[in-house]
């Protein structure tokens, strides 16, 4: 039912972006998630970010694993190719896709189970390699699709709907991503669109492995009192370390940012992000301070959100490998096959 394409006629009054696309051109099939699921809010934020950045929809490739969160690529960017791969393995599939065609924009969507439980290894190694992508984890602390068992990001002591405690140490994907060499690392909250949209935009502008851990309450299985991933809990405990404005190439940079507390960073594609510090001790350009910020928040029982770490100098995988500027999937046999002459020489060398 929910897969009927929606009428695509443009109401004249609908706002259009630089490419002449309307917001609706970035939408996808109707969601089949639970009403109120945090994931739907994140999809909306992604759609909004892509619209505002005027990304050509068909140049985006959206990949995911398995889970409620991993279903969401179906509910956005209807004009983009999508790949709902297997559980926990999106990072390797995305890496391969990226190697085949470096010119597309890669969006990886995953869940906390998909990434922190079964997929931890692939997540870590994709970050290490600096795969050029936006990797979003829709983090609800549970396996939603299998009815709410705790995932590896569930905080120790957090209560399940049935009252059981999460027993193991939680995995903080943000600090792990920084430790692994990811060059853009952020955390946000599905309930805070004002913070989330700019972060997603900045992530798209970034070259390299951009990771965003978005806390996204599971209204059906993990939104009760006692859960540290409920809307109420996250609203109360999240502390933004900075605020972000993304100024794409064309627009002039506003000047009225107070000195010191704000910082403009030029992204590789010419656009600029302006960071307003909210936590004086935090500096997202300094890995040690970024990690320290996370430790501080952890000890204070708070959730640090915002752009936690950024390294615009980092090399992405293709630079590391020295691959051709042209997408590999465009090379013809003439270019790829050494041909019979070369083969004769090889034969000769084997006698």
């Amino acid at each position, binding site marked *: 039912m929910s*897969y009927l394409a929606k009428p695509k006629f443009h109401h004249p009054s609908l706002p259009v972006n630089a490419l002449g696309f309307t917001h609706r051109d970035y939408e996808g099939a109707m969601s089949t998630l639970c009403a109120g699921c945090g994931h739907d809010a994140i999809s909306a934020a992604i759609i909004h970010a892509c619209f505002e950045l005027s990304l*050509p*929809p*068909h*140049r985006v*490739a959206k*990949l995911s694993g398995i889970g409620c969160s991993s279903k969401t*690529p*179906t509910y956005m960017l*209807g*004009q*983009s*190719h*999508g*790949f*709902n*791969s*297997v559980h926990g*393995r999106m*990072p*390797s*599939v*995305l*890496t*391969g*896709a*990226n*190697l*085949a*065609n470096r*010119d*597309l924009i890669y969006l990886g969507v995953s869940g906390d189970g998909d990434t922190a439980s079964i997929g931890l*290894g*692939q997540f870590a*190694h994709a970050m290490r*390699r600096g795969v050029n992508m936006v990797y979003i984890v829709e983090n609800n602390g549970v396996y939603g699709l299998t009815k709410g068992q705790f995932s590896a990001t569930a905080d120790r002591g957090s209560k399940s709907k049935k009252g059981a405690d999460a027993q193991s140490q939680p995995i903080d994907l943000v600090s792990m991503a920084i430790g692994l060499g990811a060059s853009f690392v952020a955390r946000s909250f599905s309930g805070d669109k004002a913070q989330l949209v700019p972060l997603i935009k900045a992530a798209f502008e970034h070259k390299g492995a951009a990771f965003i851990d978005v806390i996204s309450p599971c209204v059906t299985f993990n939104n009760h009192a006692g859960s540290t991933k409920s809307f109420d809990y996250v609203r109360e405990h999240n502390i933004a370390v900075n605020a972000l404005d993304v100024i794409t190439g064309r627009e002039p940079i506003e000047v009225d940012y107070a000195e010191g507390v704000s910082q403009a960073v030029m992204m590789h594609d010419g656009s600029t992000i302006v960071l307003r510090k909210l936590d004086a001790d935090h500096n997202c350009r300094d890995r040690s301070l970024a990690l320290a910020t996370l430790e501080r928040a952890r000890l204070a029982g708070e959730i640090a959100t915002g752009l936690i770490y950024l390294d615009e100098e980092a090399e992405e995988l*293709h630079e590391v*490998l*020295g*691959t*051709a*500027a042209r997408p*590999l*999937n465009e*090379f013809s*046999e003439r*270019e*790829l*096959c*050494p*041909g*019979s002459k*070369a*083969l004769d020489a*090889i*034969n000769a060398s*084997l*006698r």
Partner: protein
Amino acid sequence: MPISAVNDFVIRFANVNGSGSASANLLFARSILRMGVPIAPRNIFPSNIQGLPTWYEVRVSEEGWLGARGGADVLVAMNPQTFVQDVAALEPGGYLFYDSTRPVGQLLTRDDIVVLGLPLTAICAAQYDDPRQRQLYKNIVYVGALAALLDIELPVIETLIGERFKGKDKLIAANLRALKIGYDEAKSRFQCPLGVRLRRSDAVGDRILVEGNFAAGLGAVYGGATVCAWYPITPSTSLAEAFERNCARYRVDKATGEKNYAIVQAEDEIAAIGVAVGAGWNGARAFTATSGPGISLMQEFFGLAYFAEIPVVVFDVQRGGPSTGMPTRTQQSDLISCAFASHGDTKHVLLIPDGPNEAFEFAARAFDLAERLQTVVFVMLDLDIGMNSHLCAPFQWDDAQVYDRGKVLSSEALEKALNFGRYDDVDGDGIPYRTLPGSHPTRGAYFTRGTSRDRFARYTEEGLPYIDNMERLEHKFETARSLLPRPALKRAAEPTGIGVLHYGSTAASMDEAQKMLADEGIHIDAMRIRAFPMTREVQEFIASHDRIFVVEQNRDAQMRTLISTDLGVATDRWIPVLHFNGMPTSARYIHREIATRLREPAAPQKLEAAE
């Protein structure tokens, strides 16, 4: 009575892993080749880096029988640790060449062999003071001695040394000197040549000596592979390395230094196949190379590639299983794991080369098949093919041929395509059309998934579209039959009801066994299967023979399972000839098994027999 044979014997070197003997042994082998005499060298090495026993065996056969023969006529015993067992394995009348610096006295119990002791250690100690050099040149010294004993033309060896160390004149001189030392010592002490020896010939022709892994890696380059993701595992590692070496040579833009390929050494096999699948989905020719344990780990992705219909090539260089098994031994025991890989109803295409030449051909062809069929294609090598050098026909490539990229809709085509359905069987061959990400602004985008979907790639849990899709996949598999390499049939000189089915690296030994049997008046037709699913020829062959042997290098006669599943034929009266101790099967073994079984009455139909 000492063996006397010209250009037809087996010589075995017993060495210690990591002692540098490998290059000397190769030098020895290639010198014979340069004399125009066919050889089949084989390494037997441990799963270890240094210090354990290794053997190097060279079969010399002017007639060109290049399968393993078994036994040894000449033994070069350089490893005291295995001295006794090595000597015991020498053929009666065989020749034992050993380092007599330390006396072996009571270890030498056999009186039916010719013993040739040369105090190699002592000689080298006298000639070199650097212990490292003593060790290294000792190997060249024995090559020199063997040249004298077996009548190898010194100039040939000298040329090879010159080619090998081209430019490094010091090294050349040093090696030539060591060679000469050994040669003279042997001449002066023994009556040269031995009864077993060489004579220049022209039996090699234009054949090349090459490892199957090199051939397959090169084939992938010729086949247009641009993305390779792999995780090291014996015996497949050298395949990926060969791809890398050849890419570095032929795929780097002279001007810019840019690479027209990408190789990722993944963190494990699951990631390796994941990367390959992602690249295949996105329109690059991609592959991974692995062995048994990797095949087990990749199962889930094989199922995804089958069901989501993604082209990808997998090289399985089989080794001794199950589990970690015998990492440095050969077997053909992954057939079932590959042909029916992953849960649910799945079937996969296998290509089964018999050696380097076909490994090159099938490797390149695999990428055409994978894209044509939009599925996983397995190329089944084994350790013997992959890591041993084989004398085979030179590689060939027709510059006129173009890659078959399969059914991919270009943006132009999409402009015309009215209502594109990713899983729509437009042509009635079970193969749908696909589109590549980014190719058209408004048309052809679809969602790839491992869940059931309808012809338009929309998720559904309904029974009819599911069945429709599964039956199309089945139909596609039928289409595959017609595209696969046909089996190779070697008919007996006379009409016979006895048929032998075999495949892969068994070929060389099987050919020889067929000849041996024919010489005894036992005529058999031999069919070499080169692919799964079976082509009609296989069924006809089975139908037209009343006595069927399957010759395999595994315990469970896995090819028999593939055949009975695919064709439904009865196999309970078939006679499996199974060689699975990790060494390549031999003509002697196949001959003995078939000959004796033919003397017995047909096996009665009982449970045991059915095993």
